[in-house]
């Protein structure tokens, strides 16, 4: 079973980036923020980051680990990994279709 990130409204897209950032291992807030900026090319505000983290945690897509002083790392849960996989496969299919059509138009 997966979850629909669309339910997260304006947090859907940041949540997707956060899940990708956590896909190679646990990260704390600042590391997530830096990684998301590197992936998306756009800054992620701290309010949006924690709004999305809270929602992802509540939905069981990520889980908090023991904090190291003020830094609390988060990691992807199994449900989070499955949800991310479904999202990315959907986007890959969409990209393939779009590129194929574009190619047909140009030729």
């Amino acid at each position, binding site marked *: 079973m997966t979850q629909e990130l669309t339910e997260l*409204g304006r947090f859907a897209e940041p949540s*997707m980036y956060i899940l990708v950032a956590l896909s190679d291992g646990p990260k704390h807030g600042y590391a997530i923020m830096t990684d998301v900026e590197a992936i998306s090319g756009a800054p992620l505000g701290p*309010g949006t980051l924690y709004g999305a983290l809270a929602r992802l945690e509540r939905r069981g897509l990520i889980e908090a680990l023991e904090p190291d002083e003020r*830094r609390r790392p988060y990691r992807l849960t199994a449900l989070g990994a499955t949800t991310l996989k*479904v999202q990315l496969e959907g986007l890959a299919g969409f990209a393939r279709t779009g590129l194929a059509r574009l190619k047909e138009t140009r030729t």
Partner: protein
Amino acid sequence: MSRLVSLYPRRWRARYGDELLGLLAERPPSGLDRLDLIRGAVDARLHPGLAGPGELAPIDARAARHRRAGIVTLVGAGLWLGGMVVAINGPVVYDSWGTYREGGAALPLIIAATALLAFGLAGTAERLPSGVWLGRVGALASGAGFLLWSVAPWVMATGAVGVLGFTVLGVSAIRSGQWPAWALGLSLASVLAVPLALSGILPVSSTFGIDGQFVVFGSFVVIWLVVARPLLSPSAAPQLAAS
């Protein structure tokens, strides 16, 4: 910085405040970040359960609710068809209105079927992305319109409101990827069969005699099936952006 964090609700601060302050210490906020924090604080106050139990229904419970709505809608489809069978087996009446089949005995089944459809419409509306308020209004209009029409089928305006609301809901469901376009097309085609039959374009009377109207109304069952189908199927691949 701590003043901005203090804008968040107490429970939220207890859970995330310390790490957020740590983050802001590592990366001092820009002007835009400060605005983002204010927006985040408003959001946290609007959704107080985000930092603790009680607000968001677990997804399993939500999915189970949708499945129940789908099953109830399917039961409604059965009742609707049952109502048509009862109507077709009603007594033939000859009076000043002409010769027709008295289908009044089917009314309780028809009303019950329409009431159950409302659960499916509500479930469909709940699955729409947040912000798609027009689709939700459509679901409400559709449920109320159809129910009123089932109680008093001679008041055609209520049926029209139901169809209009259903169309609005259907368009929203298509745009959010919940329904395929053919689902709405098929539903509207079944509704369109009524004027086509009344005008004689669809030869139901010549084929089915006085039972023709019930055959046409029976095709409305498509609406129940179209509504139930996505509620019963596992979640489709989620979309990235909320519309």
